[in-house]
């Protein structure tokens, strides 16, 4: 049994632990309070807060990862948008796929995605992440990553500049403000 299967088994154990036996507790599939809030103006305030604190996961996967790292440096000062690099997926809101996704790497990337707490968004950064780039017909590249992850913003380029990534974040902020993003169920 490899590591990923083991994690899934552990997660299932947590689910099956039987909290329903505890008196006074109740498990529901959906959160009724969240569903109610989504219909009110409170969601606008929540989205205002979310769009201004897009912490991204530092997950440099290919040569675009160098631009990803440079974006988080002091020169571009992304803190003014609330964009802060985080090293743990449990702190992050945005997963940036910054390179070709090989068949071997895809389970690890899915695992990072599962570790991130919702609401969470994905940005495809660079040609390789969007379509495979020069490796689109390779034996090891997983084509069409957007079938696996709910991608909100595509940033083309080989590699894109740091400014392009900041532009992508701004577009993501616009989508969150307009309630058109895929990270939240409306």
């Amino acid at each position, binding site marked *: 049994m490899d590591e990923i299967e083991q994690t899934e088994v552990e997660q299932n154990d947590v689910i099956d632990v039987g909290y329903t036996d505890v008196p006074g507790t109740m498990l529901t599939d959906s959160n009724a309070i969240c569903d109610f809030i989504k219909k009110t103006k409170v969601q606008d305030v929540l989205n205002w807060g979310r769009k201004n604190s897009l912490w991204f996961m530092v997950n440099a996967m290919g040569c675009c990862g160098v631009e990803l790292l440079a974006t988080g440096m002091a020169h571009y000062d992304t803190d003014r948008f609330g964009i802060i690099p985080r090293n743990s997926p449990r702190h992050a809101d945005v997963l940036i796929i910054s390179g070709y996704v090989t*068949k071997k790497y895809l389970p690890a990337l899915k695992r990072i995605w599962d570790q991130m707490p919702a609401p969470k968004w994905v940005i495809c950064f660079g040609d390789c992440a969007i379509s495979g780039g020069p490796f689109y017909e390779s*034996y090891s590249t997983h084509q069409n990553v957007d079938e696996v992850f709910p991608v909100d913003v595509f940033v083309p380029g080989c590699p894109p500049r740091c400014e392009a990534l900041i532009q992508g974040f701004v577009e993501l902020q616009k989508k969150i403000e307009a309630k058109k993003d895929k990270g939240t169920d409306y």
Partner: protein
Amino acid sequence: MDANSIISSLTGKFPEDIYDADIESDIRVIAKVKPENVVEVCRYLKEDLSFGHLCCEFGADYPDRNEIEVIYVIGSYDHPVVLTMKAILPRDAPEVESVVPVYWNANWYERETYELFGVKYLNHPNLKPLVLPQEMLGEWPLRKDYEGFPNKTARNLV
């Protein structure tokens, strides 16, 4: 030692095993080696000729000649010469002795060549999968007759 003396030393020590030795330029020597005695030749190169640096080891597939070449690129810190040594194996059953006892860094090179070309290394200490995902093992994807490429272009490709 320059390129000429390296070739004469190699062919003098192993007249049976080294053939087609040639000088490509002042700093590149190319030679072919019998796959049975690769380890002895490498040990002689390392211990007596001070070729202490295995730069890389990889394979090449030639389906029309029905051969798989295993190529050793060996450099030296003492002579300004890089030696390219080729061992020619049959394509249906490529087997060659591992050079890990001589050059320890050949360990991962041979694991990768085994996965991508199917060259079986005898007496390798740890011949287990390195780069390929579990479901692709045994497909030898870098051979020329590999068919498993995706036959459609990516949907997002503009």
